[in-house]
Structure formats: C-alpha cells, structure tokens
C-alpha cells in the first residue's frame, strides 16, 4: 500500500524518485508552453489561458486519482503530506507571489523550465527568487508573527466547507470544466478569434469530461477498503466454522511457558482494557487499529504464531478473521475471555479433598503454569516491553 516511501522504497532511493518525478514535471511543463513568459501572463490579460487549463487539469487529475487510490485501498491517505494551513501567511504570501508573478512573468517552477532551455529572463527570475528567499531568511524576525499566526494544522478544504471529500471532488471538477468553457469564450473574444473547434476535438473533450465524472461516480459508489474488509469479516463470522483454530486457555498457557518466543499473544481490546489487565506477554492491537501500517509485520510474519483474545468471544473471532484477511501469519483464537484466563491462573482455588484425580492434575498444572508465567514475565521484563513502532511522518511542501 502506498505511499511506498519509506517502508518499501528507502529514503536514499527516494532521491532518485525525486529526479525521475522532476524529469516528468519539467518535461510536461515545457511541452505545455510554461517556459514562455508571454504564455504564462496571458492568463492575466485574457489572451491565453493555457496556465489555467494545464494547472486545473493537472490538479483535478491528481485529486481524482488520489481519491480513487484511497478508496481502492492502495494509498493510505492518512500518511500523505497535507500542507498545513497558516491562514494569514498563506494569504499574504500568496498575494506577494501574485505580484511577483505579474512583474516577473514566471513562478519558480516555470522559471527553472525557461532557464533550462536558454531563456535569460527565466534565469534572472531564478536568481531573483534566491534573493527573495535570502531576504526572508534575513528579515525573519520581522515576518515571524504573521508567519506563525492562525496555525490550523493540516486541515482539508472539504472539512472546512462541511462536505465529504467526494462531494468536493465533484464540485471542483465541475468548476474546472465550467472554467475551461468560459475561458475559451474570453480567449476567443480577446483574440478576435472566430474559429470553431473541429468536431472531433469537441467529441474528445466531451468524452474526457464524461470520463472524469464516471471515475468520480465509481469512487462514490465503491465501498472503501475498510467497509469491504468489514463485510468480509462479518460474512466469514456468520458462515465459517472456527472451532479448528480455537485454543483453550490451558493449551495457550503451555505455549507461553514453553514457547513464549514462538508466539504473539494479541489483545484486540481497547488500550484501557489492556492496561487494566492483559495476558502475560500480550501486545495490544485494538481491533480498529489492526490495519495500521505499524502492525503489518506482526500480521504478516511466518515465524511466530498469533493468538487472539478479547473479553467477548465475538470480538476475538473478528480479530482473528481480520488478521487472516490482512496478513499471512498463522493465527489462533483463545476460547476463554481475558477475565476467564485471569481467574483460571491468578485466582486459583485449591480443589477440595474429594476432588477427582483429573481435577487435581488440572489444579497442579495451572498452579505450575501460573508460577512459571510469572517467573518468565519477571525475567523477561525488559526484553518483552512492547516495542513502540513509530510511523515516520512524511515531509513535503516547499
């Protein structure tokens, strides 16, 4: 599941990815005509709306793609970089950039493109940008207040507008197509252009519009990865027989005492319940968090057997099924609840005098297992402290 950096592609190789992405970026910008300052400023005087067309098409293409990947479950949207909002500095900075755009005729990316094919004005703009950055760095104390004011964090526009992502997707796509249509009218008027689009091109544009909305509709009606997983779990819960993977407490206790290093005991309850009591060596993976990236290794590995438990049997089974669907490890379910396990091993009551031999054996076994487990936990206290897996934060922006 994406993003592939840093778990699948290393941070070092990421620099090669940057180079490749940049080549694609520079190539398309130049092909679109963004290396020409006259084409760029045409946007502001109405004679050439190439910037709007390219920019908006790229924006909605990527946005629809991100939505689609997110819905399909191949891109984890909670991990991608969202530019944080600092209200005033965004507005003031944007206004200064707009002024720079109309005076200088470029923006940083396009000026690099222009300079690359030998445009001296592009080179001058790049040089100027360096001076601007330097001025900011020098005068930072002066800008600091506005730079840090109204920090809202990585808020999303759809949240601000009180709509779902997909509704905003529809809205922005519709706005883009309306803008394309209107700017064509303006362009024709400003340039005294009487020409008509060839029929084939009109059909081409119409089918592109249709395609964009079709993808959006698919995203809107497609159940996302989590609800698909949920329905698979519920279906399996109702229809499959799990008795073969259910393990009684005594067997698990034996495993703990003899093979603690070959098993994972996974508590799928809430962190609070886990804190109050948990089985020896248990790790806490709350049911809702099981698909988080940090647990992937545990659910995927083939060296250890995973045992799932909870307070209610239903939840333990669901945890087991989720692990089966998400990973490749060998999984089992503890029949008893955590409180039953506690009663069996911690609050042992000696059998009365006329107990059968069997009962006596069980008592002896549990008593020994309980002491052994206690000893093991004590002895391995430091090495079995749960390892806190940190998911690295992706940095982005300029």
């Amino acid at each position: 599941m994406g993003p592939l950096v840093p778990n699948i592609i290393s941070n070092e190789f990421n620099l090669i990815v940057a180079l490749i992405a940049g080549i694609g970026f520079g190539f398309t910008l130049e092909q679109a005509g963004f290396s020409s300052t006259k084409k760029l400023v045409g946007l502001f005087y109405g004679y050439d709306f190439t910037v709007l067309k390219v920019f908006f098409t790229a924006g909605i293409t990527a946005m629809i793609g991100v939505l689609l990947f997110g819905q399909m479950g191949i891109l984890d949207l909670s991990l991608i970089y969202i530019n944080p909002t600092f209200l005033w500095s965004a507005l003031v900075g944007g206004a200064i950039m707009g002024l720079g755009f109309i005076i200088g005729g470029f923006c940083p990316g396009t000026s690099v493109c222009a300079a690359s094919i030998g445009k001296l004005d592009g080179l001058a703009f790049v040089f100027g940008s360096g001076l601007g950055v330097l001025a900011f760095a020098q005068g930072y104390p002066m800008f600091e207040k506005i730079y840090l004011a109204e920090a809202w964090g990585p808020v999303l526009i759809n949240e601000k507008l009180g709509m779902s992502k997909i509704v905003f997707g529809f809205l922005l796509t519709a706005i883009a197509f309306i803008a394309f249509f209107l700017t064509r009218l303006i362009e024709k008027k400003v340039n005294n252009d009487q020409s008509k689009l060839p029929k084939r091109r009109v059909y081409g544009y119409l089918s592109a519009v249709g395609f964009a909305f079709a993808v959006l509709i698919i995203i809107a009606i497609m159940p996302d990865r989590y609800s698909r997983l949920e329905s698979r779990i519920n279906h399996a819960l109702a229809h499959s027989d799990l008795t073969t993977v259910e393990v009684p407490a005594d067997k698990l206790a034996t495993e703990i005492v003899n093979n603690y290093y070959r098993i994972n005991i996974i508590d799928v309850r809430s962190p609070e319940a886990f804190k109050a009591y948990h089985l020896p060596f248990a790790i806490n993976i709350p049911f809702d968090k099981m698909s988080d990236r940090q647990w992937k290794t545990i659910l995927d590995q083939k060296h250890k057997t995973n045992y799932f438990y909870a307070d209610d049997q239903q939840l333990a089974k669901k945890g087991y099924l989720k692990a089966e669907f998400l990973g490749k490890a060998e999984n089992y379910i503890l029949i008893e609840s955590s409180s039953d396990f506690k009663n069996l091993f911690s609050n042992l009551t000696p059998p009365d005098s006329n107990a059968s031999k069997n009962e006596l054996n069980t008592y002896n076994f549990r008593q020994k297992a309980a002491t052994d487990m206690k000893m093991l936990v004590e002895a391995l206290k430091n090495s079995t402290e749960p390892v806190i897996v940190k998911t690295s934060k992706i940095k982005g922006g300029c």
Partner: protein
Amino acid sequence: MKPNKYMNPYLAGFLLGLVLLGTIYVTGRGLGASGAIKSVVVTSVVEVAPQHSANTPFIKSYHEEHPGGPLKDWLVWEVVGVVIGAFFSGVISNRVGIKLERGPNITNSTRIIAAIIGGALFGLGSQLGRGCTSGAALSGMAVMSFGGIITMIAIFGSGYAFAYFFRKLWLK
C-alpha cells in the same frame, strides 16, 4: 527549424496530473520548486558566512533541520530533474537557444530587472506561503489541503488585481 507547436494544454495537464499522482503514490508528498532554491540559498549562506548564519535564527534552524544540505534534499533532486526534463522537451521541440522574451514596449534590461524583482517577490512570498504554485497550490489541490487552495486563490487573485498596473510590461 521552426519550433514545434505546444502540446494541447489539457493533454499536458493530464500528463502533469499523472506525474503528480505518481509522485504522491510513491513518496506521499507532492511536487515543489521554491524549496529547492531555499535549500541552495541557505546552504550557500552557511558556507560563505558561517558566523553570520549562526546569528540568524531562521537560517540556523533550517540548516539544523536539513543536515544533509542540498545533496540530500528531495526538492533539489526534483528540480535537477525539472532542468533535465525541460531541456529534453526543448530539444525535441526545437525550442532550445539563448533567448529573452519580453513585452513589445520594454527594453531587454527592463525585462531582466522586472524578472529579478518578480523573482525576489515570488521567493519571499513562497516562504511566507510555505510553497509556491507547485508546492502549495498544485500539490495542495491534489490532496485537498485548505492552506494550499487558499494560497492558490491568493496567488491568482493578486495576479489579476495587479495585472492592470503592470500592463505596460506585457501589452502593446
């Protein structure tokens, strides 16, 4: 040889969108440009005037947060790619050559001065706005960032607001 025509803008936009989408899928972040300039500028200042940098909080903290310098900076490599990609595109479309593009009523030196001033404003603004047209506006739109989209509105809104006053730079 005559330069080839530019690509259809919608097709170019679609391709650019795919590049951006691919970048987000692989790296979890969007494209950018001004950050690369920042990395180079800050490192140069540190190299040229270490004493001064140590006393300038912004440069000091940026330098500490990016210990690898430009050679370990994602955006620097990306911009190196932009140079290669744009040059390649220019070569196949016959657009490479030393040139200076300007409005019909201004001299070459006015154009260069305007480009430097414009660049300086853009460079400054991109620091305040935490990204430029690519890093904040375009990449922000793709991930529906509120900050990115208002930065975009501010850039283009202000461009239109000031366009009238600078029409002599561009129009007849």
